[in-house]
């Protein structure tokens, strides 16, 4: 249930304020009912609800984004949440850029800690090496897109942060994608 509650936080603010308590209630009833039937029914229920939530979140975010893009700037209101998202997007993009920079330093300087550490630690390092920039750039893109409001409204605090987050988060995400493709073809 906590996982589902966390997923509910990913809905756009308006949708969350309007429906999140109702969705929570329905999820609770559905899962209790499935639990009474059998464990497999409960597991199938969880899978169905998580998949449904993910598709619905994507749909609502897309709807929210389209709405923000088509609303005239003069009708947009400053939104504290959007500014917070812009700031998070900016910070995440900085972390992802730092990761890419470290990656390049390791690749071009020839200094890699990999041969000097044990096998499990090597695995952990490689996973961190790949996952941190990917996840932070994804987060930066997501939060940047969520804060499109201030960008459209112009002259609001946070608009440049969101633009920075989207552009650099996008670039890092793209380069990580290319890196994964290169690894895939190489193997």
């Amino acid at each position, binding site marked *: 249930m906590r996982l589902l509650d966390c997923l509910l936080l990913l809905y756009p603010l308006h949708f969350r304020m309007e429906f999140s308590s109702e*969705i929570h209630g329905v999820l609770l009833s559905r899962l209790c009912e499935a639990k009474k039937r059998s464990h497999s029914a409960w597991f199938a229920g969880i899978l169905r609800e998580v998949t449904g939530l993910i598709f619905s979140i994507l749909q609502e975010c897309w709807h929210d984004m389209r709405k923000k893009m088509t609303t005239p700037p003069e009708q947009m209101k400053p939104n504290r949440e959007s500014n917070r998202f812009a700031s998070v997007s900016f910070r995440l993009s900085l972390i992802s850029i730092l990761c890419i920079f470290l990656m390049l330093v390791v690749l071009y300087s020839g200094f890699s800690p990999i041969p000097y550490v044990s096998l499990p630690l090597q695995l952990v390092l490689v996973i961190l090496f790949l996952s941190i920039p990917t996840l932070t750039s994804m987060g930066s893109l997501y939060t940047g897109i969520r804060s499109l409001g201030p960008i459209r409204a112009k002259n609001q605090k946070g608009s440049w942060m969101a633009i920075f987050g989207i552009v650099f988060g996008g670039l890092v995400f793209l380069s990580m994608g290319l890196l994964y493709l290169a690894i895939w073809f190489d193997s």
Partner: protein
Amino acid sequence: MKAQDFLPLTETSFFILLSLATTPKHGYAIIKEVEAMSAGRVVLAAGTLYSALRRMLEDGWIERVEDDLLSSDSRERKLYRLTDLGRRILELETERLHALVRLTSLRDARE
């Protein structure tokens, strides 16, 4: 927009409108009714249902009404009911489906 402009409906939308045709219902009751009507074939996830309800509310097919009764865990529940536009859309879609069935029956009879 005219009711005709919204046709054809998706299966989910059709079932949701059909479940609301008789009485106003809350989210959980809609899921149960759709499951029963489709003999377990269509099982709506909560996320899918509320995305559809949000769209229908925005387009004016349904409206929200306060439920006087509290749920078992004392939460306030909102009921959804069809508007005139929603009812018209449901009628038109039903007519469209009837016409399709008639057409298929005619073709089968000729063969």
